[in-house]
């Protein structure tokens, strides 16, 4: 028990991963898939799930080969010091941009959906202050918060879905023919960009029960597939792909038109609240990853002194990132998706392949 102090189980880590996908899914999944795959968009998560399954399998090989080591240590071991530094630095830059991106999106969303006349600084700063306080308590606290949020978020989405079922029009979800195969495959790339599991590996040395990674990975996969499918089904089924693909907050407008028994409405506020929770967990976890990267890259004794200065830096970056929300949205589609695919899929696969070639790990360890 003492051995595991300050560590989290793989199950908890994967719960965090599941929450990490919710923020982008709610914002982005329905509209981006509807744009390409149109009425067949609800099939996209099924295709994407295959990618994720493959990804989890590969990462499992890596994790079993390097028990109790962080991703940075693995990279240093697999590649040379120079290449290791370069790759880790790339991750550092990319994840920082990603956090700034989500930080800005979180504030922009509040301004778009509820508070149009409020300075967005207030939301950004309050989030950063909260993160500054929580992150010092380490991964165990983050993981526990994650577990509670996970239940909360799942219940909210489930309840909203139940309210939305009566208004789903099957016609909006059909027809499905072989013509939809290519668009569905194409759209699945944008879905694959949401799988941030690799970023959790930067604190893989703090995982326990690593042998259970694949088992819980499959369960997480099931959850993510379900949430994605449900959100896309509900959005497109209610409003049709034409409106959904045009809306920057697609699931929100689908929820906005929910009325219960013709009387109770305004459920979007519940969604926005849940969304903020998932945003918070996401920014928290990614910041924790970055701090771990900083610690390894600069060979620090502790990252605690770097928390505040990094958060201040994040605040500026979130401002420098974009002039307006249109730039942010275009950035999301044109850069972040491909960037994520490179950093989350291609690079880890290359690293694993090199590790296998250099016989650092082998598939049997699985």
């Amino acid at each position, binding site marked *: 028990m003492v051995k595991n102090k300050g560590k989290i189980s793989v199950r908890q880590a994967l719960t965090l991963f599941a929450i990490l996908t919710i923020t982008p899914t709610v914002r982005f999944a329905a509209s981006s898939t509807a744009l390409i795959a149109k009425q067949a968009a609800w099939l996209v998560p099924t295709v994407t799930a295959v990618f994720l399954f493959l990804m989890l399998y590969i990462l499992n090989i890596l994790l079993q080969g390097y028990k109790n080591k962080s991703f940075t240590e693995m990279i240093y071991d697999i590649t040379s010091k120079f290449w290791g530094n370069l790759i880790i630095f790339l991750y550092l830059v990319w994840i920082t941009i990603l956090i700034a991106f989500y930080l800005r999106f979180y504030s922009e969303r509040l301004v778009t959906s509820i508070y149009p006349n409020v300075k967005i600084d207030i939301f950004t700063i309050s989030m950063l202050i909260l993160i500054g306080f929580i992150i010092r308590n380490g991964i165990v606290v983050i993981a526990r918060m994650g577990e509670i949020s996970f239940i909360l978020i799942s219940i909210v989405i489930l309840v909203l879905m139940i309210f939305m079922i009566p208004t789903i029009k099957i016609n909006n979800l059909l027809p499905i023919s072989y013509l939809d195969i290519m668009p569905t495959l194409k759209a699945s790339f944008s879905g694959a960009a949401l799988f941030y599991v690799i970023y959790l590996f930067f604190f893989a040395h703090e995982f326990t029960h690593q042998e259970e990674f694949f088992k819980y990975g499959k369960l997480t996969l099931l959850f993510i597939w379900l949430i994605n499918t449900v959100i896309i089904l509900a959005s497109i089924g209610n409003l049709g792909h034409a409106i959904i693909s045009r809306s920057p907050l697609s699931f929100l407008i689908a929820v906005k038109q929910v009325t219960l028994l013709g009387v109770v409405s305004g459920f979007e506020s519940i969604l926005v609240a849940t969304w903020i929770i998932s945003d918070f967990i996401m920014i928290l976890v990614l910041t924790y990853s970055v701090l771990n990267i900083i610690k390894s890259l600069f060979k620090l004794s502790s990252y605690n*002194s*770097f928390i505040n*200065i990094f958060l201040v*830096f994040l605040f500026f970056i979130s401002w420098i*990132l*974009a*002039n307006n929300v249109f730039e942010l949205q*275009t950035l999301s589609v044109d*850069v972040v998706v491909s960037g994520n695919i490179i950093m989350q899929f291609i690079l880890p696969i290359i690293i694993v392949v090199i590790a296998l070639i250099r016989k650092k790990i082998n598939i049997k360890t699985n």
Partner: protein
Amino acid sequence: MLKYIMIIGAISIYEIYMMVKKRQMKDFNAFLIFVLIALLASYIHVHDPFDASLSELLLKLVKSEYFKGG
């Protein structure tokens, strides 16, 4: 700009004090780099020397459709 310098300054003083207290002075150099980066970021945020946001630069790099309107 001044308020940002003050905030960064205040944080730096506090963190350096904590570093001294916890005998982690070997992290000082790296910390200094971060302070400089934060100052640079605040300068870019306030004065916008490139006359473009990071998005604009990245989007121009990938030749985004965003600039092909009008």
